[in-house]
Each structure stands twice: as structure tokens, then as C-alpha cells.
């Protein structure tokens, strides 16, 4: 697959106050590729959400440069285009719902970007359909579940035809069903529309299904690569406040406890089952 860079992050430094000793972000270099699902993980306070908020210019780095499709976020004229290109779903489903009904909320972004009403209505319908919320168009926010509100937030974003959607711990306050619905919708958008997804999460199971993963600690990128590669060397991840995905833990236990000769290759549950089965049929 040809990797087309969609966001470049170059030597970015950020701190919350000009005289703060601690940098929330230090010397970040990272490229985001078009169409990929990138997971950014790390413990609370590692800087992952700060980084996300720099990508659409909600926070401005003190040093360094961030470009979204050749638009620098420091360019005031390009900022609105960047915010259209980079949609963001925040953590708390309630605090990002602006409209008094689902329709109004989905339209909010389009109204801001001055989309002509006839076009707006078409996009409104299409984006509600894309997140399976078309029956809820007239619903008021307090009659929706957390997962439904997050799907409305996604609809509001895709109505603007963005290239990138950032999930900023968007599923951390949801129950398992809400979480699954939100992630399913995002996967579909990622696969069918080629929308790049940047998921800020501390859910390791979710991160391990990403195309690529970045681990952050104290404002720095400490690991970067395919999840299967990162978890192949699990040493140090627990110290970073993370956990290991279930498959990795089980694989280690099978080797150490059960004395089964397994490779380090199996990463998904299915791969591990297959490997176990291949072993047994060989004997």
C-alpha cells in the first residue's frame, strides 16, 4: 500500500503555561498516513490528549510544526479548513452536544462552515444514516444513551466530509454496547470511506486492532509501530502504566506455565488458537 502522509508533526513542543517546568509534549515527530487507523496510547497524563488537540489547532505548540495536507496549523487562514478536515469526538458525550435535537446538533458544524441549506439537508440525512441514527433525528439529547450521543457527534463530523477523525478517549465513558456501536461505525467509515482514524485510548484491546500504534509517556513518543511488533517486546509497557492485551498475556502464560513451545507471532486470539491447533495436529 502506498503511504500518503496526511499529517506531519515535526519537532513539536507544548506546555500549558509559559513558565511551566514540565512540557506536556516534548520533541514529537510523527507522520500520520492517509486511510490508516492509528492508536495513540499511554497512561493518564502522558500527553496523548494534548497531542490530539494540537492536530486541529485547539492547542498551539510552542515550538515545532504541524501540517495537515500541507496546511500549517499556525496559518490563521487555513485553520478553519483544518478543522473541517480533522474532526474530533471528545470524551464526554454530553459536553459536545450543542443542538437541542439530534438534527440541530448534526447541522451545527455545517452551519458554522456556511454550507448551503439544500446541501445541508442532504448531508444531514446521509450522515445520520451512516451512523445508524436516522430514526432519532428529532430526539433530544437527554433521551439518548452515551453511545448514541457519540454517534451523533460522529455524524456531525462526517457531514463536513473530513479526511481524519480523532477519537479523543471517545469510548471511555460508554458501556460495552455503546462502545462497540461507536467503534463499529468508525471501522466502517475507515474501511468504506477511507477516513483516517486517530484513536486516543488506553484500551489496549482496541489499540491492538489498530494498523499502527504510538505509545506515549511523559510527553514523549516512546514506542511506535505495528501493535503486534510493539507487544512482541512487552517489557516496559506495564511500567508505562499500560496493560498487555489478553492474547499476549495468555501466550506468555502458555509458554511459561504450560510449557508449550509457542512462537511470538500469534497476536490475535484467532492466530493463537490456530497456532495451538497446528502444534497439536503436528504431534
Amino acid at each position, binding site marked *: 500500500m502506498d503511504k500518503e502522509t496526511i499529517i506531519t508533526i515535526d519537532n513539536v513542543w507544548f506546555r500549558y503555561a509559559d513558565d511551566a517546568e514540565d512540557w506536556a509534549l516534548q520533541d514529537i515527530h510523527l507522520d500520520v498516513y492517509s486511510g490508516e487507523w492509528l492508536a495513540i496510547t499511554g*497512561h*493518564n*497524563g502522558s500527553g496523548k490528549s494534548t497531542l490530539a488537540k494540537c492536530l486541529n489547532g485547539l492547542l498551539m505548540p510552542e515550538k515545532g510544526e504541524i501540517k495537515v495536507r500541507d496546511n500549517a496549523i499556525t496559518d490563521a487562514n487555513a485553520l478553519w479548513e483544518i478543522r473541517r478536515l480533522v474532526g474530533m469526538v471528545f470524551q464526554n458525550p454530553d459536553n459536545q452536544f450543542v443542538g437541542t435535537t439530534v438534527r440541530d446538533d448534526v447541522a451545527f458544524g455545517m452551519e458554522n462552515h456556511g454550507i448551503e441549506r439544500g446541501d445541508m439537508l442532504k448531508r444531514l440525512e446521509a450522515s445520520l444514516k451512516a451512523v445508524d441514527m436516522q430514526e432519532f433525528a428529532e430526539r433530544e439529547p437527554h433521551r439518548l*444513551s452515551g453511545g448514541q450521543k457519540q454517534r451523533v457527534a460522529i455524524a456531525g463530523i462526517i457531514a463536513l466530509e473530513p479526511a481524519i477523525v480523532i477519537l479523543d478517549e471517545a469510548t*471511555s*465513558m460508554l*458501556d*460495552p*454496547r455503546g462502545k462497540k456501536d461507536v467503534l463499529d461505525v468508525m471501522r466502517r467509515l475507515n474501511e468504506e470511506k477511507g477516513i483516517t482514524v486517530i484513536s486516543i485510548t*488506553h484500551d*489496549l484491546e482496541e489499540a491492538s486492532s489498530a494498523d499502527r500504534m504510538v505509545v506515549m509517556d511523559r510527553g514523549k513518543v516512546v514506542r511506535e509501530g505495528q501493535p503486534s511488533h510493539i507487544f512482541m517486546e512487552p517489557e516496559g509497557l506495564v511500567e508505562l*502504566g*499500560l*496493560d498487555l492485551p*489478553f*492474547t499476549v*498475556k*495468555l501466550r506468555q*502464560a*502458555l509458554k*511459561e*506455565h*504450560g*510449557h*508449550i513451545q509457542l512462537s511470538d507471532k500469534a497476536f490475535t*486470539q*484467532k492466530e*493463537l*488458537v*490456530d497456532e*495451538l*491447533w497446528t*502444534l*497439536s495436529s503436528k*504431534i
Partner: protein
Amino acid sequence: MDIIIKNLTHVYQPNSPFERIALQDINVSIASGTFLTIIGHTGSGKSSLLQHLNGLLKPTRGEVIVGNTVLASGSKTKDLKALRQKVGMVFQYPEHQLFEETVEKDIMFGPINFGVSTDEARRRAHKAVELVHLPKTILEKSPFDLSGGQMRRVAIAGILAIEPEVLILDEPTAGLDPRGHREIMDLFVHLNKREGLTTIMVTHNMDDAALYSDEVMVMDRGHLVVKDRPEVVFQDVDRLNQLGLDIPQTMRFLQLLSAKAEKDFVTPLFGIDETADYIAERLKKEWDGV
């Protein structure tokens, strides 16, 4: 302190167009010292049940008996207060209830409301901070200068300082990162095993339910489906599936393995090491047997 729930029914906004039955004829008894986990969907009645245990909701019919306190539809406010002292309730995102200038004052708030002297309340605050593994130096700080995980511990300490005999937890790990999650769960297991606190927890996390509890209770649309040891509750995979509930990830893996092997390997095991031992043993048997 034993808890007995008899024929408990709760109806929200009775005799109005919005009437809704939240709990229907629940009968259950919880022995002193038990770690009980309640699972079920959003809207299954879990939260309503919890709120009866410390008198935040009163039964429409039936009664809740905690030790020697009886809560029924006509109970007086005085009884409610007695009940709340015995049954400590940690709500979801408990850090949202902090309000005092210092951590110490915030933790002392509960005990003082229940009529404890200032000196005694201070002593309890110091003890509670230790129980939740926070340094004593935190007592003088403002609760709003702490990290999210620390704030949650302070809020929990505020409940522990009331010295309840029963601890109720409504999704206590919501929003925490994996490290915070592990630490908080360890804390509750410790309180249950060492301090003997009867613990009742609501969670969506099936692994926590399976790993930490003595008993698991399943609720569905206001009804009690089953209450038993986790091995028994999770054995019945079909029923859980019907209710749209998950099983622990160890068992999900065994399901996958069974499908591949076309043999039933599924058994209620929750620890990773135990599961690994079991798989090794079963596979070796297969290999020897063939």
C-alpha cells in the same frame, strides 16, 4: 452485616403516564463479608437496587433489611440516616462530589454529618487516607489540585471514614487507565478480605466480576435472573448470550479454541495462568490420546 431483600418492587412515578417498573419482586440475601457483583444492561435495574440498599430510594412494595434496620415504603427519615451510616455508597465518578477546601475536611464531612466529633472525624480521615494508599501529605491539599485517580481515592476515603459495614460500588473503575483500574480493584479486594467489608459492586467488566467476586448476580429488565458463584453463573454461556451479556475473556478464548477443535473446551476459568494450565493439560491429553 447480613442483607435480606424481600419481595422488593420499585415503580418510578407511579400512577402517571411515565410509570415505569424498575424492580419487580426481588428476593435475595447477601451474607456478611461477601463480595457480590451485579451485572446486567443499562436499565436492568442494577442502580435502582443499589439505591435501595442505603435508603436513597424507598421500596414501593416489599422490604430491605440491613442488619437490624428495616427499610419499607413507610420508613422515616431517621431510619434512612441510620441505614446510610451502615451502608457506604460510592457513586459512579465519585470525585464529582468533592467540595471542601482540603482533602482532610472533605473526608471529615461524612463522619461529622453522622454525628461524630471533630477529633474522631480527623482521626478517621487519617486512617482512611492510609486505607486508600495515599500519602498523609495529601490531607492539606485542595482536592481539586489532584490527579483524576487521586481524586477518586479521596472520594472513596470520604465514604470509608463513615466506617460503614457494607460498601456499595457503582462502576468504580469507570474512566480510569489500566494502572488506575488495577490499583482500585486491588484496594476493594483488600477492604473486603482484610477489613471484612461486605462489598456490592455493579460493573460492566465481566473479567472483574469473574475474578474478584464471591458471588455474581445477573439482572434483566428489573428481574433477578440468577445469583450464584461466578463459576456457576458463567457456566451458563447460552443464558448470558440471550441476555446480551458477555463472558470473561478467558472463556471467550476457550470458545474459540473449542470451535477450532470441534470439541467442548469451555469451562468457567477466569485467571490467565489457570487458563493456560488448563489449555496445556487438555491439549497434551489430546496429543497423547491420538
